[in-house]
């Protein structure tokens, strides 16, 4: 099964024309309650979760289609071990400074701590059996995780990115993947930031200079290629 290219910017994706469920994964970054839902800690801090939660429905539409076609679906979660042994001192200090210290009790359990309700993936996008979930202590999904091991084991060379936030964990992971030679596609409407200027910037610099980090498309453009 080889699929037609996606009508992406600034080039038809992937660059070499061919992609299939055997070599392509949908990577859904950090679609966790704390970043997306009312009473999650972003909401409690007064951040605009309207921006991030708007990415749930486009992500769900593509997830269901790609899941049905047998693509690899990989979910990531940002969070720390309950004993915080994987938490950098400066990350902890910065989180405390803005009133949401990692590991302390928040509205949905301990902030960014594995196993807590706020840390888990939202129900609309919850992984099904067989879909790898990568728990990561940082912004990038390659650092201190088995993300690359999973990709290598499955023969994945092409990555389609959805999730939050586009200027933080999505971008860090995508730029790392691009450096490693993966052919990447960012979904502009299935990713979001807590600041619309930041989201627009990420879309712009991704497509800059012929696609310095890959290409950008909307969910409907991917669905059209999958029709």
């Amino acid at each position, binding site marked *: 099964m080889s699929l037609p290219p996606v009508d992406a910017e600034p080039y038809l994706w992937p*660059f070499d024309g061919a992609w299939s469920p055997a070599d392509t994964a949908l990577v859904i970054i950090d679609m966790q309650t704390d970043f997306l839902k009312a009473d999650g800690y972003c909401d409690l801090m007064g951040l605009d979760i309207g921006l991030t939660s708007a990415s749930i429905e486009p992500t769900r539409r593509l997830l269901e289609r790609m899941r049905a076609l047998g693509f690899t679906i990989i979910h990531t979660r940002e969070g720390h071990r309950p004993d915080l042994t994987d938490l950098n001192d400066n990350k902890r200090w910065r989180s405390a400074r803005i009133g949401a210290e990692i590991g302390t009790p928040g509205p949905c359990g301990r902030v960014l701590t594995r196993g807590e309700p706020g840390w888990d993936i939202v129900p609309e996008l919850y992984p099904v059996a067989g879909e790898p979930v990568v728990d990561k202590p*940082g*912004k990038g999904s390659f*650092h201190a995780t088995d993300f690359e091991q999973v990709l290598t084991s499955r023969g994945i060379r092409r990555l389609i990115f959805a999730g939050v936030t586009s200027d933080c964990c999505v971008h860090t992971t995508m730029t790392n993947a691009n450096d490693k030679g993966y052919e990447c596609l960012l979904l502009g409407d299935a990713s979001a930031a807590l600041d619309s*200027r*930041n989201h627009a910037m990420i879309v*712009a610099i991704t497509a800059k200079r*012929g696609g*310095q980090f890959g290409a950008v498309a909307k969910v409907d453009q991917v669905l059209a290629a999958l029709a």
Partner: protein
Amino acid sequence: MLRQVNGLYPWPYDGRWSAADTALLVVDMQRDLLDPEGWFALTGGDTAPLVAIVPAVARALALARAARLAVIFTIESHRPDLSDLPANKLWRSRRLGAAIGEAGPLGRHLVRGAAGTAVVAALAPEPGEPVVDKPGKSAFIGCDLDQILRRRGVRNLVFSGVTTDGAVQCTLRDANDRGYECLLLEDATASDVARDHADQVHTLSLAGGHYGSIATVAALAEALQPETVR
């Protein structure tokens, strides 16, 4: 013990920095990117904003050397046989009009050993200052930067160089994930597009400094002033 640098937040966060644990990174200040005959100019990039920060980087370099901080340079480059060059990166460079590995006025574009991969003369490394050749944007992928930093006991990193929206931010983000305490020198970093630099500084300022602090070269100088001249 040095004074904290006055910036987005007083840096480093815990006040702990010294010559023994701090490095200045000079990112990709190479002729391929800054020279009017280099690869970046040949592919339509505007080198003027990159060249404009050379004096500021030179000042940061002089401060770091005087204070005996570690100084480390990075260079974006590939092996001569291009075995470390991803196929899509090659394809994109060809589409921009100057394929990586092809010969140009400064030798083969972005290939180690070619004239284009030298640091610009005004910022030339001194003996003992490591130069890290990296095949991507991040200096934590496919090279030995992390090994060098850990070997030297470095935990605080000061960033200068180009481009803010390319190798600088990619390296800074990866450094932060690894626990390094990062400081971006906003006037010693640049993008070819002014707006891209400003947007990147805005993003890195998120949540009071999600990835580290941000300051000017003058603030760094002030913090490094010896006690006697305060």
